[in-house]
């Protein structure tokens, strides 16, 4: 299968890339790792007139801790994040998710920003960003703006990104107290999309109560979902098995799974309940060790 013809541009600066997008708008499409976009081109689901390859732009794949945040460049690859000690220390949910994305070969090319901008509801990163309270930095020729992950996803393959904008960085606030997180994914086999995925982030206060709980859900709605009712029930609560079980029930009640080849809606809802409970317990273990 061949992609349809396109005009290929490989700018070597972000400014140049943004200028190309400003000129072409909807006619242009940005190429990061290509592990979602190239299959879409081959299947002719996408046929941009201009393909803007971001791969020659230096400095967009960094990982650094600064100003109480973990900052990850949009072009950081999944395998790079899976191997990063800084990500493991500052964001265990991201560290747990990275090695579960697709397969090892896809992880050598696929990028965090590409996955988020693609906005597949079965994509793993969106749930992690929602759970961790991440802010996404969107750049255009006209400037920059920051959008919370909870407001970035708008529906199936739909985000807050304007056609003239690029996602350049994610900023994950570093927890102030003991914290933990994880990502649990049910898949039929390596490389399959998630049947269900659950990202959890938990932060404790000085008294050992829950200061903040973040829960993101994969593949159980038109986009990565925030389990808002579960998060609110946990805030300020004691981190008990009962509280975690109730959070699981609330998350399962609030999601919108569809029956498909990967399982019935009822089954997926049940997995959400179990994975939220287990994920919170695992996050608590990590937090108490930290």
């Amino acid at each position, binding site marked *: *299968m*061949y*992609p*349809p*013809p*396109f*005009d*290929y541009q*490989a700018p070597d600066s972000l400014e140049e890339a943004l200028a190309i997008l400003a000129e072409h708008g909807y006619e242009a499409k940005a*190429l990061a790792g*290509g*592990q979602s976009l*190239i*299959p879409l*081109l*081959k299947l002719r689901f996408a046929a941009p007139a201009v*393909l803007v*390859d971001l*791969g020659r732009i230096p400095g967009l794949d960094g990982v650094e801790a600064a100003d109480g945040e973990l900052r990850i460049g949009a072009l950081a690859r999944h395998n790079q994040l899976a191997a990063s000690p800084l990500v493991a220390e500052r964001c265990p949910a991201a560290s747990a998710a990275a090695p579960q994305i*697709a*397969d*090892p*070969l*896809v992880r*050598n*090319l696929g990028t965090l920003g590409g996955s988020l901008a693609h906005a597949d509801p079965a994509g793993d990163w969106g749930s992690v960003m929602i759970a961790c309270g991440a802010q996404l930095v969107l750049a255009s020729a006209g400037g920059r703006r920051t959008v919370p992950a909870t407001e970035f996803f708008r529906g199936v393959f739909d985000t807050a990104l304007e056609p003239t904008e690029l996602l350049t960085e994610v900023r994950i606030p570093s927890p102030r107290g003991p914290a933990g997180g994880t990502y649990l994914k049910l898949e039929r086999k*390596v*490389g399959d999309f998630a049947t269900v995925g659950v990202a959890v982030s938990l932060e404790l206060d000085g008294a050992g109560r829950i200061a903040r709980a973040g829960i993101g859900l994969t593949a159980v709605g038109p986009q990565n979902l925030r389990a808002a009712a579960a998060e609110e029930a946990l805030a300020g609560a004691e981190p008990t098995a009962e509280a975690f079980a109730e959070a699981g029930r609330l998350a399962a009640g609030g999601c919108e799974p569809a029956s498909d080849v990967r399982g019935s809606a009822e089954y997926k809802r049940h997995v959400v309940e179990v994975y939220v409970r287990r994920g919170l317990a695992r996050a608590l273990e990590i937090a108490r060790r930290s």
Partner: protein
Amino acid sequence: MEITVTVNGTAETRDVEPRLLLVHFLRDVLGLTGTHVGCDTTGCGACTVLLDGAPIKSCTLLAVQADGRAVTTVEGLIENGQLHPIQEAFKEEHGLQCGFCTPGMMLVAKALIESNPDPSEEEVRWAISGNVCRCTGYTNIVKACRRAAAQIRQAEVAS
């Protein structure tokens, strides 16, 4: 568009359409048909090559993205007319049945052994988890990868 890709150590400069996939650049432009096209949808790993040493699926990369970079295909494993220890090990352990997945499996093994000279069975299975053997000959593929690692370690001790 003119690109230069170093393939198995030789700089290859060609004028290509931007939409040309790397796997077709290797097979159709350079005639290196050891890289196979299997599923053509990023699933099976038959088209695996090493890009700057890391295994990737060449059906899901444009040739223009490889401009200025180094690609290793199965044809690049052979050295001075001698089979690479990984190729020898696949032969000895019967790590292939129909052979369609074999080039990809061997290239993944090469990258794995370079970063982990003594991989466990689980580590080998993890490394090849993006490569499908539809004959289901995984047991011998895993044995072959571990035998190759052992032989490469021994050769390094001997030298």
